[in-house]
């Protein structure tokens, strides 16, 4: 098996689950955090004994809201990670809610070994924040970025949402401008997506909420892309921009089809096996069940699938084409490439392909072309 250099850690707790969110997240279970952190540490320890892990180049603590962990808990988890083998200069990201970014926490996270902070700003518009059910204000969010930078974080990312009902392109660019003024190194801008199992999904189904038209969503997307490019950010993935050298190494590894280990409730792992097939496996989603399984048997596996080399190559291309600076992940699909180039969705250059503007808008169609 290929060695694993990336580790994802999931923290499924939130103070409030926003109505559009379909991640594996739970509110009102904060009491479970201490046993959960113990289980997470234990799962990493057991996995280390069974899998070829390390030295780890990237660690990503995502959620949910990992910033709900105390500084000591973050430290506990990262101590375990260090024991597993952390490469010098490794990227260690923590996702944080603006409300938790206090000078004390910032100092504690840095001390625990976190060196990249990803802050869930989402929007600065009061109406949008209310619609999205965010518990922080725009002022809180800007303050959080400033606190993180002032406290010593040299790599800060902000998450934003566009295409929010009631927010026009001017208001959206306003939010973007204010965030850029804070000098973040990395920015993710996601189109607000309606997922069927969420409360937003229900509101849209029943006609309570009307989502913007595709044209309006694309207008906001491309307006942001133009602004970010002008500000010196590379558009390196469909929803991600970074100052040169600040692309998220953890996510880049996954998009380049590198293996990773995922620990925590509902976390997914991906390994390349010796016969060139790919194994994906995932943990049980519920935190209670996760804690119970890890303490009983050292892991919380819930399911897995093995992809044949051909299917894995298709999947790699499906993901790889989302990298907008070019990818060779579609090298085994000359016929599909030709067709997609002909349809104006792909550009090909020296064995690398990348999406055209139209290809970005129809990226799922492009990705599907490599699946059988």
């Amino acid at each position, binding site marked *: 098996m290929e060695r694993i250099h990336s580790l994802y850690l999931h923290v499924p707790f939130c103070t409030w689950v926003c109505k559009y969110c379909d991640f594996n997240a739970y509110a009102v279970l904060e009491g479970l955090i201490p046993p959960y952190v113990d289980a997470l540490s234990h799962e990493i320890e057991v996995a280390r004994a069974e899998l070829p892990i390390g030295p780890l180049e990237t660690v990503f603590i995502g959620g949910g809201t990992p910033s709900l962990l105390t500084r000591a808990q973050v430290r506990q988890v990262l101590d375990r990670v260090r024991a597993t083998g952390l490469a010098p200069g490794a990227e260690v990201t923590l996702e944080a809610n603006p409300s938790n970014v206090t000078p004390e926490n910032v100092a504690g996270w840095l001390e625990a070994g976190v060196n990249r902070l990803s802050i869930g700003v989402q929007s600065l518009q009061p109406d949008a924040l209310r619609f999205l059910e965010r518990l922080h204000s725009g002022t809180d969010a800007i303050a959080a970025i400033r606190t993180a930078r002032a406290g010593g974080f040299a790599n800060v990312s902000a998450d934003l949402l566009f295409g929010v009902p009631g927010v026009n392109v001017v208001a959206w660019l306003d939010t973007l401008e204010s965030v850029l003024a804070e000098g973040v190194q990395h920015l993710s801008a996601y189109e607000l997506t309606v997922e069927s199992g969420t409360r937003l999904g229900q509101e849209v189904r029943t006609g309570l909420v009307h989502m913007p038209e595709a044209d309006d969503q694309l207008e906001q997307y491309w307006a942001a892309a133009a602004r970010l490019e002008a500000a010196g950010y590379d558009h390196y993935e469909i929803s991600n921009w970074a100052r040169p050298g600040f692309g998220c190494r953890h996510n880049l590894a996954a998009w380049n089809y590198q293996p990773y280990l995922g620990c925590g409730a509902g976390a997914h792992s991906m390994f390349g096996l010796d016969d060139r097939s790919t194994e994906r496996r995932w943990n049980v989603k519920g935190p209670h069940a996760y804690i119970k399984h890890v303490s009983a048997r050292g892991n919380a596996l819930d399911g897995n699938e093995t992809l044949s080399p051909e299917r894995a190559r298709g999947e790699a291309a*499906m993901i790889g084409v989302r990298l907008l600076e070019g990818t060779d992940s579609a090298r085994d699909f000359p016929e599909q490439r030709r067709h997609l180039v002909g349809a104006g969705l792909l550009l090909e250059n020296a064995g690398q392909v990348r999406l055209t503007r139209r290809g970005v808008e129809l990226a799922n169609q492009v990705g599907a072309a490599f*699946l059988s």
Partner: protein
Amino acid sequence: MSTPTHLTRAISVIAHVDHGKTTLSDRLLEYTGTVAPRDMVEQVLDQLELERERGITIKAQAVRMLYKADDGNTYQINLIDTPGHVDFSYEVSRALAACDGAILVVDASQGIEAQTLANVHQALDHNLTIIPVVNKIDLPQGNPELVREEIEKVIGLPAESVIFASARQGIGTKEILEAVVHRVPPPTGDSGAPLRALIFDAKFDAYRGVVTYIRVLEGTLRPGMRIQMMQTGKSFEVDEVGIFRPERTPVEDLTAGEVGYLIANIRNVRDSRVGDTVTDEARPAAAPLPGYRHVTPMVFAGLFPTDTEQYEQLKEALEKLQLNDAALVYEPESSAALGFGFRCGFLGLLHMEIVQERLEREFNLTLLGTAPTVEYRVRLRSGEEVPVDNPDHLPDAGQIEAISEPMVLATIVVPSTYVGNMMELSQERRGQFLNMQYEPGDRVVITYRMPLAEIIHDYYDQLKSRSKGYASLNYEVVGFEEADLVKLDVLVAGSPVDALSMIVDRSKAQQQGRRLAEKLKTLIPRQLFEVPIQAAIGGKIVARETVPAMRKDVTAKCYGGDVTRKRKLLEKQKEGKKRLKRVGNVEIPQEAFMAVLSLD
């Protein structure tokens, strides 16, 4: 076991669709103990899975019942169940030719309908004794008295001869059986004469070959005899003769008047044609029984495998299906748009649907059917006449002297309120009004002469919807007539799609082209690029619509944990696309090829 000729009867049950013919047959089987109630599956006589599911009879069936009548005699009653749909009217006609009497079933709430009349005319043509039965008298909305009056006034059968029944509840069953033994005459044929047996159906059995359903009218049929089919001239040696109880039961012989089957190592139903006469090769009859007609398909359509790799499978499936369906004809066809497939001829639209459904279901194929057309006769300037059953094969306008199309005599029976709607519809469909007759029970019988092509294009559905379901229709083909017709072509993304061509009346061509383009716009899903749809007559574009390009299809987040879900979603979408046919760069769904059927 053998019954004297004077105690033998042969009858059919005839009715408009859904008037309860098959249910009544089931009751007769039960009452005579032919089928034990515990073995009674609904609709014993409908043997095809498809028949039970759709509640219709496609193939004729036969069964022998023994009935102990009130006069103390035990009668042998041969019951032949007939298909109810107009597509299969020739089979009905042959089944009736094998009978001496007919039970006419009329629904107490629906009254006399178009096929009731057509069936009665056929029965009278064959000199059958008709026993009128008003069925479903237990239904609250029924009016049996009124229907009895209708039967007397419209059909001319005395009101006192009408029996009230409810097949569902078993009311009237005995009265019907008594009427059969007393009113229907016994057969008159001589069992010592040279053999003449009428084939009224045939069925392919994978182990025994063709099972031929016959009624012996004269002479005697025994195993070991060499028989000859008088129309085809082919000879066979008889392995087995038998009767239906209702399963096949071998007997020593079948004598004049008896109904049963013969098995003679016949490998294809085409050698055992419905309507043909079976005779003794050693002592042939002087002449065949009258009324044989070669069955000709009326409706033609292309059948193409959606997956081109299934062509061979489709070919084998058609061969197998044809063994059992003498009315199905096909020949290889290639389409620039759809690849290799078969041009198939059918008796009518229902027959077409059934064939396609059986091919898909029994042979596990995914098929694309093109819109049905009729067969045109084209007279060329050279004087030559060519048949055209595929619109795309119509010769260049410059070569054509004249085009003739098949015409039908259509009979519509409808309550008087809807007469205006029916006439309006038939006029729109190029119908020539012939006659209108008011009948008791507020019923009007209207006859039109109209092109068959108009009937197969959604006419029946329109008839039903413009009469709130009350109108009924029967039609028969009455010959060919010249018409001013042109070919309408369709171009999708600039390329002609041969499978979408149609032949239409010149005066309506432009309007049809516009409607077709509009319709296709709604049926062709958005593609990666804009898809223009054009309709053209003789190279001149008469209509244009555009399917806009797909605007957006992109997932915002695709991180490690999302990959499996996303891949599965895209794989599922892709699976759905396999039902579409790729024509050039454009993916076209099956419904688009049928769009020409409903342009109103």
